[in-house]
């Protein structure tokens, strides 16, 4: 623990000279200390201000309206559905009628009810998968970016290997081992999302760790782990928000695709992706049982992507502000 010794020795000398550690450090560095940009008010600014700024853009407003519509539908849907999603109401592939407004599906279940009940799974699963990917990516990126050793190499090369599979192929490989199970699907998608996030976090971390406020914390003997999470992490909130949006879009796409391939939710579950899989054979006779879930997935993905684009625009705006100030 020679690093700690030298720090405490430094502190004693600082006490003797009656100057603050900050002043002592700025003297050693030969220039004034630059404070962490993400402190106090600024820290709150990134979390709250960035979304608020993003709301000024019309893309964000449109995207938010669209996504909230789908979320509301998924949440309220099961309570207002006219039938149970498992109930046989009509003949298979029945045309729209007074009893079933959008007709029946391949087994004669009500398309309206199945659509209203089928949004929760794709929404919640892709949200959880994105959260897993974000946590994994942030931790790996921070550790790799902040560690100057073998750990860095091991993590980054490991991520390269993961990046050598197209997402869906990797998840299919995992599923082929343990069979289609929901937790596996979510975990698999989460893991495939992590490498690009880790790369972004890694890049920013490498840049930030050379700045004065990190060096100041290091010279005070703050542990590396604590520095990574209390000094560096608050400064990468904005790019992380954009990453979250981007990855949510990817996760929605991948999870819906896997359900569509028949490896996601299993019958008789009501799920938009699965509905498309089950009913696509009857596309010519009864298009609604495919057309409606496809449209809803499309709207959801587009909405999230529009919001993300708005946040990205707002982030560039903030960067420009601080740059000129």
């Amino acid at each position, binding site marked *: 623990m020679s690093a700690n010794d030298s720090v405490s020795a430094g502190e004693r000398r600082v006490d003797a000279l009656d100057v603050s550690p900050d002043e002592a450090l700025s003297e050693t560095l030969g220039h004034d200390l630059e404070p962490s940009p993400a402190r106090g008010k600024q820290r709150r600014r990134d979390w709250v201000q960035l979304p608020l700024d993003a709301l000024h853009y019309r893309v964000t407003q449109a995207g938010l309206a669209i996504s909230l519509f789908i979320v509301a539908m998924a949440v309220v849907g099961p309570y207002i559905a006219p039938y149970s999603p498992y109930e046989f109401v009509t003949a298979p592939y029945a045309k729209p009628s007074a009893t079933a407004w959008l007709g029946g599906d391949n087994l004669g279940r009500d398309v309206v009810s199945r659509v209203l009940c089928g949004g929760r799974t794709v929404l919640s699963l892709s949200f959880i998968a994105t959260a897993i990917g974000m946590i994994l990516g942030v931790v790996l990126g921070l550790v790799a970016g902040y560690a100057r050793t073998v750990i860095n190499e091991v993590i980054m090369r490991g991520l390269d290997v993961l990046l050598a599979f197209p997402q869906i192929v990797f998840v299919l490989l995992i599923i*082929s081992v*343990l069979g289609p199970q929901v937790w596996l699907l979510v975990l698999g998608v989460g893991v495939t999302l992590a490498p690009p996030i880790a790369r972004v976090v890694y890049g920013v971390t490498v840049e930030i760790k050379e700045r004065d406020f990190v060096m100041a914390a290091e010279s005070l003997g703050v542990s590396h782990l604590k520095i990574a999470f209390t000094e560096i992490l608050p400064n990468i909130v904005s790019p992380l928000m954009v990453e979250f949006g981007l990855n949510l879009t990817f996760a929605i796409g991948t999870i819906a695709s896997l359900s*569509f391939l028949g490896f996601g939710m299993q019958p008789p579950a009501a799920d938009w992706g699965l509905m498309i899989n089950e009913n*696509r054979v009857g596309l010519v006779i009864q298009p609604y049982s495919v*057309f409606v879930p496809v449209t809803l997935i499309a709207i959801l993905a587009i909405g999230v*992507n*529009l919001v993300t684009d708005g946040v990205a625009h707002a982030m560039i705006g903030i960067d420009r502000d601080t740059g000129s100030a």
Partner: protein
Amino acid sequence: MPVLPKLILRRLALGLLTLMVISVLVFAATEALPGDTASQILGKSATPERVERLQDQLGLDRPLIVQYFSWAGGLLRGDAGHSLVGIEVPVTQLLGSKVVNSAVLMLVAALMSIPVSLLLGSLSGRFRDGLFDASVSLGSLTFAALPTFVIGIALILLLATQILHVLPAVSRVQHSASIWSQMELLWLPAATLALASAPFIVRMLRGSMIEVLESDYVQMARLKGAPERIVLQRHALPNAIIPVIQVIALNLAWMAGGVVTVEYLFNYPGIGWALVDAVANRDVPVIQAIVLLVAAVYVTLNLIADILTILISPRLRTGLH
């Protein structure tokens, strides 16, 4: 040793190493089945004789490391084992025509998407923030968000069933016949892949065009009074070409994954369709072969992109960073 060959050799070595690690991973993943591999694959209804035969066939009594090397050695000799399903044909025979079909599909899709999206991307970069740029941006945002199968179903609804009937409906592909004899079935899947991959090219090229146009050397060319046409042709475009190579390679690499849902949707007899089929049947040798093949294509394309970038960019070529 000169810088350039050293850089390329290092990149090649890294690519080979990645492939080796991937092969171990693919092998380990499919061998990680809990319990007895053979009965897991065959399911609950398997007879003891069938389980024993499969164990024998897969050489499951040998140590894992021996199994890995015999599998990897077989792959290098062009022997990927036998399919576990049906009449147990060799995997290479099963996949041979499918690999060609998928390659044709990817190539046609790339030929559809790359020229158009390069044009759209560079134009919207050139006329940045104009009406054209805004509409291209909105379009690429929309298509980038859509899952590939959603685009495919939209095309089917639009062109093959509900509204127009200009292209044949989906399920008429003959898996036994060559794809050359049924080219009309190629257009819809290829168009789907092209539409799904185009936004990335458009956005990347727009970004690189803007970067080049704002660069010092383009400013300099303008300052010395060169006409705009010369500025674009002689100074901007050659530098904007570098990311294009990356883009084309990444685009093809992306398609190696994109074919999975597209081929399943259109019942197109390629490796993507075969992968879904194999996963559903737990046909381990086929899964291993396809996943490894896709990863190899992915790694190789990235490798080619990196090496071409090293060769083209003057700064890397001379070893200055």
